[in-house]
């Protein structure tokens, strides 16, 4: 039951819907009674994406057409790759799959974007990412889909012991959108960071879902997701961390914090820790609220008119997540993207 399978076959009965526990806040079955036609190839060259010309190379997946189905980062290499999923057709459907292998000791910065340059497309992207012993990956995802778009992007990440994986997902939603990460955590000193930001306005929807399975001892996972929702938008955060029997001394921390800026906006959050091991340090924090009025007064006392103070504090609220991005240029690109989204909203 996946969107990708439905897109491939054209069969809407394969769509996940609200009867599936994992999809109850991101119902595709009820939304898509029919699927649009398969996409045509795009002939026109692409404009620069949200990461501009950062990095060494670009892989573009346009309307589901993959020119490189797999990417290997060989041992000892350090590469920064832009991976762009671009939809240029309206009322069309397409899906794409890609695999990436990062060999032992190699380092990859993946600048992934989901770009909608059209209206009512339905798209799915699947990424298989394997990181071998002591490989290191930082993945920064920016999703800027069209208003009428339906997009589900799934990444399945498998790590070897000693690997390091860091991820920050930034999105302003779509008509319906899920950005999902499933990660097999091998323990053994491997470190994982899974962060996210959603900035939603109008009637847009974004769902950030993560599932982390700690299978062996001595693994670390930290998660921080923050969202700002306005208008009638809906933000969904589902974070599950499973610590399997024997995965002792796992250290897992999950935080999700959302600001609701309008009465009709909605945030649904489901943080879950399932722990079957001993001697673990696991914690989660989840808050949904309004801007801190004391801080707002403090900023106004220093001379900022209310809209400026609100924008500054909102940017700051999200900035804590942006600051955790390791790659400096990507961090600044993410910061600029957040600032633009907040300006557009104000």
């Amino acid at each position, binding site marked *: 039951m996946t969107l990708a399978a439905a897109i491939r076959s054209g069969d809407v009965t394969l769509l996940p819907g609200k009867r599936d526990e994992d999809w109850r806040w991101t119902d595709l079955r009820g939304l898509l009674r029919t699927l649009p036609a398969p996409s045509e190839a795009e002939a026109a060259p692409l404009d620069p994406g949200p990461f501009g010309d950062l990095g060494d190379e670009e892989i573009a997946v346009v309307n589901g057409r993959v020119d490189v189905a797999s990417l290997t980062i060989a041992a000892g290499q350090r590469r920064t790759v832009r991976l762009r999923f671009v939809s240029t057709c309206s009322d069309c459907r397409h899906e794409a799959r890609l695999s990436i292998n990062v060999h032992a000791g190699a380092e990859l910065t993946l600048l992934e974007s989901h770009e909608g340059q059209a209206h009512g497309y339905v798209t799915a992207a699947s990424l298989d990412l394997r990181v071998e012993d002591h490989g290191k990956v930082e993945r920064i995802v920016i999703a800027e889909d069209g208003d009428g778009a339906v997009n589900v992007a799934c990444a399945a990440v498998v790590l070897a012991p000693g690997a390091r994986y860091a991820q920050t997902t930034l999105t302003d939603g779509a008509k319906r959108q899920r950005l999902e990460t499933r990660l097999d955590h091998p323990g053994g000193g491997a470190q994982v960071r899974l962060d996210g930001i959603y900035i939603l306005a109008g009637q847009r929807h974004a769902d950030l879902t993560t599932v982390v399975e700690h299978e062996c001892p001595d693994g670390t996972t930290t998660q921080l997701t923050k969202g700002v929702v306005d208008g009638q938008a809906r933000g969904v955060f589902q974070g599950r961390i499973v610590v399997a029997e024997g995965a002792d001394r796992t250290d897992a921390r999950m935080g999700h914090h959302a600001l609701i800026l309008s009465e009709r906006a909605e945030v649904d959050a489901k943080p879950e820790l399932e722990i079957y091991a001993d001697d673990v340090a696991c914690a989660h924090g989840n808050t949904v609220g309004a801007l801190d009025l004391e801080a707002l007064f403090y900023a106004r006392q220093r001379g900022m008119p*209310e809209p400026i103070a609100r924008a500054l504090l909102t940017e700051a609220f999200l900035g804590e997540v942006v600051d955790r991005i390791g790659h400096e240029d990507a961090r600044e690109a993410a910061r600029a993207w957040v600032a633009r989204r907040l300006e557009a909203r104000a």
Partner: protein
Amino acid sequence: MLRIQNLHADVGGKEILKGLDLVLPAGEVHAIMGPNGAGKSTLSYVLTGRDGYEVTAGSASLDGEDLLALAPDERSARGVFLSFQYPLEIPGVPALTFIRTALNAQRRARGEPEANAPEFLKLARAAAAALKIDFDMLKRALNVGFSGGEKKRMEILQMAMLKPRLLLLDETDSGLDIDALKIVADGVNALRSPDRAMLVITHYQRLLDYIKPDRVHVLADGRIAASGGPELALELEREGYDKYARAA
């Protein structure tokens, strides 16, 4: 400069200020002393326009303009600055960004040209050096993880850069050791000028050894219960607030 007449104010439906009168001329430093709960912090929040501090009667004007009719940021642009007793932590906003946003918002409100980056950084470096603040600290999120003394120093730094005309210092000495207190007092004293006025709100006399007031007022039960010269602060230190509390 500041004229307060018969000021009454409620907080959460409870009357805290009960007819407060005060005249603070330009060029002077006045101290407001009083026991806990007398209304000292309420006065500072009423003058700066915080939500929830409701004026029910009386007036407060700055150079003849009705202060109470203005939004907090408008008061700020006219030169009202409150050094908070408990400065807020602003996660995610570097101190430099916060101060520059405030400074330029004030300048825009006054129709003045905004400070460009080099001009601003020059101001910030000079202010930091004067207050013995490591400049790198200004690149960190404002007040996050700062000690009590560092937060107070950041308040004075903002004051030095924003150059207000009416300075309200709310318990600025709390949390300061003696060395930090001297640095903060030097920073405040450097801002004394004939066209500025200061209201130093404090529970203890100690701060007034370093920031010498022209006048001292005792605030008890929402009113000025007594006024006098600097010697009044010493008397309060010796004898406490009991007789004013009883009188009220």
